[in-house]
């Protein structure tokens, strides 16, 4: 089992990560999530401009084993989409915290960040 975490990011129980730079949030899925899913073969189109509440579905991803939802760890509006993962979904497996990011959002409720886990808490949460 693989479960690499990056210090300074925030983590959700449904295995998404959030990087916060002022009111800009970058969202991706964790190393644990990509490892559990296996080879990701398809990411459904993510629409720029969509306003999401925390916990709403950003997109669905398909691996050779299953189809899963990716939930937004924070409320906000999608202002940028990583087209590279849509064209080449294996990027998510190869580099979940880097090239495999999903979308950037304009955070509408920064209070929600407090509800997310730190790197060490998440590592503990997903410890076998």
């Amino acid at each position, binding site marked *: 089992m693989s479960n690499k975490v990056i210090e300074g990011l925030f983590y959700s129980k449904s295995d998404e990560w959030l990087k916060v730079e002022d009111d800009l949030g970058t969202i991706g899925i964790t190393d644990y999530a990509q490892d559990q899913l296996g080879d990701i073969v*398809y990411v*459904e189109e993510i629409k720029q401009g969509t306003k999401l509440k925390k916990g709403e579905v950003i997109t669905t991803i*398909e*691996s*050779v*084993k*299953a*189809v899963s*939802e990716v939930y937004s760890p924070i409320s906000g509006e999608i202002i940028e989409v990583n087209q590279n993962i849509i064209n080449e979904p294996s990027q998510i497996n190869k580099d979940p915290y880097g090239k495999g990011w999903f979308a950037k959002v304009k955070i509408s409720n920064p209070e929600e960040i407090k509800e997310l886990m730190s790197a060490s808490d998440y590592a503990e949460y997903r410890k076998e």
Partner: protein
Amino acid sequence: MRYIPSTEEQQKEMLKGIGVSSFEELITSIPEEVRLKRRLKLPPALSEQELEEEIAHIAQKNADFYSIKPLVGAGAYRHFIPEAERALLQREEFWTCYTPYQPELSQGTLQAIFEFQSHISRLTKMEVVVPSIFDGASATAEAALMALRLTHKDKIIISSLLHPHYQEVLKTYLEPHNITIVKLPFQNGLTSVDMTRQFLDDNTAAVLIQSPNFWGGIENIPGIAEITHNHKALLIQVIVEAMSLGILKSPGNMNVDIVAGSTQSFGLDLNFGGPYNAFLATKREYIRQLPGRIVGETRDKEGKRCFVMTFRAREQDIRREKATSNMCTNHNLNVIAADMYLSLLGTQGLYQYSLLNFKKAHFLKEKLLNSGKFSKSFSYPYYNEFLINYHGDIKSLQERLIENNFLPPLLVTQFYPEEQFKQSLLFAVTEIFSRAELNYITDLLSQ
């Protein structure tokens, strides 16, 4: 069905196992007033020999579509079935209702499904085909659900000349989804293109048109496709009489997005209304939103050609409540029947059969019109079914036909109660009628 008797002792044991003290206690949830409080009124028991004779006697009252030829179609069509298909279908290897999920055990079945998909893909000119959906009506509903998923919109426009039973099934499927269904009126036997244009808006997920329609009419699919796509909606074509695919323009060549079709006409008897089979065909770009799954061709580890189920990840056993469909019935034997039928007929054979249907229907309509007892309901292009008005007593027409072993055409008033259709009859004419029979029928109805 097997009759399994139980002794009093066994009944006690079962009641104990369930945790109730008596049979009465077991059925307390059934209201008193609906219970039968006497024994069934059954005649005295018969010996096996007596029973066989009695049942055979009752069975003789049945008419089947070989002793009585149907002049009615309206969703179920009697066509000729080659004996080779019937013989091959008797092979017990094909006799399973199970979905062949294990490729290592099911290469023959999977290959047959793959062939069926290939036939339908060639006929419809669509890139992807889902085989083995319950029937045409549920395939239509699945197509509508698929369009809703693809467009994230909430309005469906349907033709009022979609088969009335299909409309019912569609309504049932869509009821929990909070969808607006708008019905398009018809004009001169066809769906009104002008009204389609008026009803279309940016909230429209799909326009659903049956062609040939319930009255056999060949719809202006390319015209409707263009205005539908202007609103970023999808065009669904429903095909109830699959035989029409042999000569009519393919949906894929008319820019249709999703095709839902019954394949009853491909090698299936009428079977008292089912089981039938249906397919759903679409463009490759919509493959992730298909209901069910497809069979794909691949290579095994030794590099040999083999077949597997694929695009399974959104099926209900994996995705549960988020599945693209809760479809699970697999009409596999009927898929194989259609595969055999189409393989036996071949491209030329299907073309010729299809043309025969068209020509014979047009031949009969002309003859009936010339008899002076009938007049046109509409001037419209049609395939092997047509609506026509009769100037006489319909009951006597029905009796004459039945006496001569023909099943009368459909009275459409049960579905379309408008005054103008009071004397309208929906005839279906397939290749099973000879020219001599059609002349005979005309004489019979010209009296």
